[in-house]
């Protein structure tokens, strides 16, 4: 049950945001104008630059420090103008339910709406910028797509650059201190260097390398160095998926300095792309499911010798099942499950908190409350103000929690918006 460090160590105050001082200052100045009740001439700010350099973190930190609800919408979730107007348009004009809190609307991955699937998305966003009464912050990796030109004109452009190695290093040291991990500077320096200024990936790497240990010795440098983790796992995957014998597939794991669980996750999540034939894929996943059973038995009965069956089945079983290969080379990708957990961390935390409150009142476990109560409470909150209010009081839910349950269109600082999906679902049914 380890926490994801990227979330745990997100900056809480603007002062904690690392690097890019000029853009940070400019952003604060821009927000100050909103705060003084004199909206700046440019009502939207476009924060752009490579991944993992603190763009979103800055906005969240500012919100937290100055008491703003940050309403987060992920642009790649949008499909068209209607939806976009619905999500962003409505919250940019309305006050929050309790009336007291202030809002920042954060539109992530703006470059993602430039594609043709989101026809009208850009025009709608342009209009929303013109009409908004609350600060609108856009985030993009690459804002230079010609189709984004009308957006760029309306935005305060703030560039975020790769962080300096020393800046990344400083943060890693701080995390090591707080986690009580003994690790040499050489190791941290190597991680910082490999990250190429992407603090998020550096923190992820650091967490992966420590793997829960409190002492990390310099041996990991071998893994980090020429044969870094990612390359190592890529090599192993290539052998596994192409092995001609179970023995060869199994051998791919020898000398690998990566947890068996992690290797398993890589194989599982790369299987669909590597195995184009549905029948082959079903056989491969059945092999993985069997390996999972062996691992579970070993764990449950504490019979570690049973693990030895899991390894050939999860590697060789997949190789044997792969009778047809993809037409061209398909590259391996980071396990999508881990990415999902990272990107939904805040929503999961919010749901867990709500479930805990409900559980404590109803003689239930948190898990049962999540499944057996939350959907009903959510439904009631959406439909009957009176009954919903009663329940919210009884369970002692905060306004932000109520908002989330009542449809999720306005969410507090800590939540990632799942709003578009939820809304769409409801519309289909009504």
């Amino acid at each position: 049950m380890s926490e994801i460090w990227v979330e745990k160590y997100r900056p809480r105050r603007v002062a904690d945001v690392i690097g890019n001082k000029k853009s940070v200052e400019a952003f604060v100045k821009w927000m100050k104008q909103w705060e003084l009740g004199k909206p700046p001439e440019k009502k939207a700010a476009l924060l752009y630059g490579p991944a993992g350099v603190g763009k979103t973190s800055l906005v969240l930190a500012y919100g937290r420090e100055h008491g703003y609800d940050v309403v987060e919408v992920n642009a790649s979730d949008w499909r068209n103008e209607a939806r976009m107007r619905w999500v962003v348009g409505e919250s940019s004009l309305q006050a929050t339910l309790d009336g007291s809190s202030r809002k920042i609307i954060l539109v992530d991955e703006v470059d993602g709406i430039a594609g043709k699937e989101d026809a009208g998305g850009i025009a709608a966003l342009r209009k929303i910028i013109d009409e908004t009464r609350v600060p609108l912050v856009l985030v993009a990796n690459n804002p230079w797509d010609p189709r984004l030109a009308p957006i760029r004109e309306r935005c305060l452009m703030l560039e975020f650059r790769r962080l300096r190695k020393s800046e990344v290093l400083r943060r890693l040291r701080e995390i090591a201190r707080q986690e009580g991990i003994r690790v040499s500077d050489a190791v941290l320096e190597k991680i910082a260097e490999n990250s190429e200024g992407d603090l998020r990936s550096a923190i992820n790497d650091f967490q992966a390398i420590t793997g829960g240990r409190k002492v990390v010795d310099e041996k990991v440098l071998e893994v980090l160095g020429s044969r870094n983790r990612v390359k190592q796992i890529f090599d192993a995957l290539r052998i596994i998926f192409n092995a001609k014998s179970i023995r060869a597939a199994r051998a791919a794991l020898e000398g690998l300095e990566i947890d068996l669980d992690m290797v398993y996750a890589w194989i599982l999540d790369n299987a669909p792309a590597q195995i184009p034939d549905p029948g082959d894929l079903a056989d491969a996943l059945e092999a993985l499911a069997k390996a999972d059973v062996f691992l579970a038995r070993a764990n449950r009965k504490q019979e570690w010798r049973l693990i030895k069956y899991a390894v050939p089945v999860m590697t060789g079983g997949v190789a044997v099942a792969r009778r047809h290969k993809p037409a061209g080379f398909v590259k391996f990708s980071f396990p999508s499950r881990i990415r999902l957990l990272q990107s939904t961390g805040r929503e999961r935390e919010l749901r867990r908190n709500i479930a805990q409150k409900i559980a404590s009142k109803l003689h239930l476990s948190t898990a049962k409350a999540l499944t057996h109560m939350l959907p009903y409470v959510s439904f009631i909150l959406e439909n009957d103000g009176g009954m919903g209010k009663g329940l919210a009081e009884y369970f002692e839910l905060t306004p932000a929690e109520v908002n989330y349950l009542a449809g999720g269109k306005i969410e507090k600082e800590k939540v990632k918006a799942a709003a578009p999906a939820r809304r769409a679902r409801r519309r289909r049914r009504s």
Partner: protein
Amino acid sequence: MEEVSRLPWVEKYRPKSLDEIIDQEEVVASLRNILKTKAVPHMLFAGPPGVGKTATAHAFARDLFGDRYIDDGHFLEINASDERGIQTIREKVKMFARQIPMGGYGFKILFLDESDQLTDDAQHAFRRVMEQFSTTCRFILAANYSNRIIEPIQSRCAVFRFRPLVKADVMKFLKRIADGEGLEVDDQALEVIYDFSEGDMRKAINILQASASISKKIDEKTVYRVMGYVSRGEIRKILELALSGKFSEARDEVRRLLYVQGILPSDIISAIYRELFYLDLSEEDKLELLDLLGEIDYRISEGATPEVQLMAFLARIAAKGRR
């Protein structure tokens, strides 16, 4: 009154004494005997969810110790699903059991809900705790599956089997609530609620309350609207995605249910089971998929990873579907 009107109905209509427990006549009769003699054994309540195990444990304690059974420290509830670590349980149990029983009862009651969530190791440790404190503390364990409770614990307990609730009784109880809340519910709607609830009273009451949030007049359609929102639609969508060969999308949806929404794997499997018969597949294929579903259900109950097992199942559907 204010307080009562805010109560969720599952709480408001929770049975307060053994007299109010629905069905479970044999269990209640035995417990009454125990109350009479005051010779309380360790007990294991086994049965499906929502049939009154937790309510019975509380009702029994209330009938035994009086209304202040919790406040006066006679009764402690621990949910094993939230506190899997045996260390926490041990400490909590010790803290509770060590204090001398008050009020001349000679013992206290510790109620361990969802005890089948404990690992084998934790169960063995718990068994020793049971022995150590059995003079001053009686244990009531509740579990969905008694076969997941290790033999040494079972043999120290009087086992009470709770039956699934009878349709007529669930409907009668729902009618009572409807009267109390000023609702008009037709019989068809009650039938549908029962079908969805699968004899789980908590679920039945929740469906009724959610229905009442749309309208005071509740018919079949109202109930379908609630259930459409609550879950059925998502599982259907996932199966359709898999059938049309969009395995990765189906996988992502399942993960969302499991990890973001926190839906219990057993609930996902039950919903798949319900939908399976209606899929656009040959009967042979359905049979094969049923076989696999039964298999992964069992594997999960034995500790396998729900996500992985569900993936394997979805991949099999994708292989059967239109290519």
